C-alpha cells in the first residue's frame, strides 16, 4: 500500500449535469503497468483528465507520491512528474516536430539536460529525428502518436497516463507502440494505460480495471482478466 505512486479515492466528476465518474477508487504501484479498460463513454478519458488536472473532480481525492493533488492546477502537477498523453494526441500542428518536443520540456531551464532528453527521444524514435524540422501536421497517425509520447518523455515522467495510444493504428504499429511502452516501463516509468483494445493492453499490464458508466465493475491482475473469457466477452466486446 505504501508503495502506491497514485491513489485514487472515491473520485466523482461531472460535466454540468452529466455524472461522468461515479466514485472511482484504485491505485497504481510504482513501476507497474496498470490498464483501464471499458467501452466508449465509460469514463476512461474523464478519469485521466481528472487526474492530470484538466478538469476538476466534484468529490473524492487524488494522491500522487503521497501528496494530495486533487485541487492542484494541471501545470503544477506536470512539474511533479505526472504526465498525461491525451486522447487524439493533441500535438501542435503547424509547429515543427522539434518545437513540439521542446515544448514538452517547457518547465526545464537546463539546456544540457534538454539536449540529453532530446537525444533519448531520438534514439527511441529515429523517424522523428529525420523529420525534426518538418511541420508535425504532415505526420502519419503512428508518427503523431510517437511524437506525443516523445513529447511527454521530454518532461521526464515518473507516471505516464496514456489515453488510447493504439487508436486508429494498423496492427503492426500498435505492436510498435506497445513495445515502446514496455521499454519506457523498464526504464522506470510507471504507466497507466487506457485502452479499448483490451487484448493488447492486458498482454503487457500487471493489473487491470474495467470501467462501465463511471464505475469500476471489475478489477484484478491482468492474467486473470485475460483468461476469464466471460469478462472479456461481457465488457470488452470480443
Amino acid at each position, binding site marked *: 500500500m505504501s508503495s502506491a505512486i497514485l491513489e485514487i479515492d472515491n473520485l466523482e466528476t461531472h460535466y454540468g449535469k452529466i455524472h461522468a465518474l461515479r466514485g472511482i477508487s484504485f491505485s497504481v504501484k510504482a513501476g507497474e503497468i496498470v490498464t483501464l479498460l471499458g467501452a466508449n463513454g465509460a469514463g476512461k478519458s474523464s478519469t485521466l483528465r481528472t487526474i*492530470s*488536472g*484538466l478538469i476538476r473532480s466534484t468529490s473524492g481525492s487524488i494522491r500522487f507520491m503521497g501528496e494530495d493533488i486533487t485541487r492542484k*492546477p*494541471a*501545470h*503544477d502537477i*506536470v*512539474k511533479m512528474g505526472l*504526465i*498525461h*498523453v*491525451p486522447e487524439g494526441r*493533441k*500535438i*501542435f*500542428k*503547424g*509547429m515543427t516536430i522539434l*518545437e513540439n518536443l*521542446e*515544448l*514538452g520540456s*517547457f*518547465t526545464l531551464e537546463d539546456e544540457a539536460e534538454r539536449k540529453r532528453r532530446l537525444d533519448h527521444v531520438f534514439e527511441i524514435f529515429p523517424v522523428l529525428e529525420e523529420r525534426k524540422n518538418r511541420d508535425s501536421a504532415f505526420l502519419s497517425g503512428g508518427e503523431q502518436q510517437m511524437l506525443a509520447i516523445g*513529447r511527454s518523455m521530454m*518532461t521526464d515522467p515518473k507516471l505516464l497516463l496514456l489515453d488510447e495510444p493504439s487508436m486508429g493504428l494498423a496492427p503492426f504499429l500498435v505492436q510498435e507502440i506497445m513495445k515502446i511502452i514496455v521499454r519506457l516501463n523498464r526504464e522506470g516509468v510507471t504507466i497507466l494505460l487506457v485502452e479499448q483494445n483490451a487484448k493488447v493492453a492486458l498482454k503487457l499490464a500487471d493489473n487491470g480495471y474495467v470501467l462501465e458508466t463511471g464505475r469500476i465493475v471489475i478489477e484484478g491482475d491482468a492474467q486473470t482478466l485475460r483468461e476469464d473469457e466471460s469478462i472479456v466477452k461481457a465488457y470488452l466486446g470480443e
Partner: protein
Amino acid sequence: MSIQDILLQQLANGLILGSFYALVALGYTMVYGIIKLLNFAHGDLYMIGAFIGFLFLSVLSPLIGDSWVGILCSMVLSMIAVGLLGVLIQRIAYQPMLSAPRLSILITALAVSMILSNAVMAFTDGEYLAFSTDLGYEGLEFGNVFVTYTQMVLVGAAALLMTGLYLFVHRTMYGKAMRAIAIDQDACRLMGIHVNRIIALTFFIGTSLAASAGIMAGAYYGSIHFFMGFVIGLKAFTAAVIGGIGSIPGAMLGGLLLGLLESFGTQIPFIGTEWKDVFSFGILILLLVFKPTGILGRTEIERM
C-alpha cells in the same frame, strides 16, 4: 516629377503608413490567435499609447530634449505602461468572460473601447493636443524624392520591433508557448505551461506594440486626439484579416500591403486621398469574398 519619382514617393509613404498598420495589426492578430477575441479596444490602446507617450515626453523633454532620444525613451516607457494596462484590461474585463458565449466578450471589448476613448475625451475636453517635437526636416534625396531621417527612423524602429517579435516568437520558449496556446490550450497545460501567464504576456506584447505605433504616429503627424485610434483600429483589423487573422507574419504583411495599397491607390485617377478608406475597406470586402482566410491564414475558419 517623373512617374518613377511619384511611385518612389508613394513607396516611402506607404511603408510608413504600413508600418503603423502592421504594428497595430500584430496585437489584433496575437490576441485573436490566443483567445479568439476581436479586441475592439485595441485601437484605443494605440491612442492611449500616444497620450501616455506625450505625457512622458513632457516630463522628460526638459532633461533630454524632444528629438529622437526623448521620443524613443518616452516610447519605451509608454510601451511598458500601456502593455501593463493591456494586461489589466485582460484580467478584469476579458478573463471572467472566457467561458461565456462568444458574443458577451465581444460586447465587453466594445465597452472597454468606449470607456478608454471617453475617458481620454473627458481629460482632454475632446481637443487636439499638439505633439510638439524637434525632429528637424533633414533627410536624404533619392533622385527627386526626399525622405526625411524621421521617416527612416520610424520605419527602422517598426522593422526592429517586428524583427524582435519574430525572433521572440520563434526562438524563445515563451514565444513557442504563445504559438502553441493558439493551437491547443489543454495540450499546453499538459506541458506544464501556465496558460494564463502566457495570455497575459501576449496582451502585454500586443498592446505595447500598438502603443509604440501610437507615439510614433503622434510624433510624425504632430497632433493627437482621443479619436485617433478608431480608424486605425479598423484599418489594422483589415490588415490582420488580409494577412490571415491569427498569423503573425500575416499581420506584418497585411499591414505593409494595406499601407502600400492605400498610398498607391491615391495615385489612381479619380481615386483621390478622400477615397483612401473606401479603397481599403473595398479590398477587405473583396478579400472576404474570394479568400476569407487571408493570405497566410489557416484554412479552417471560425464563425464569429
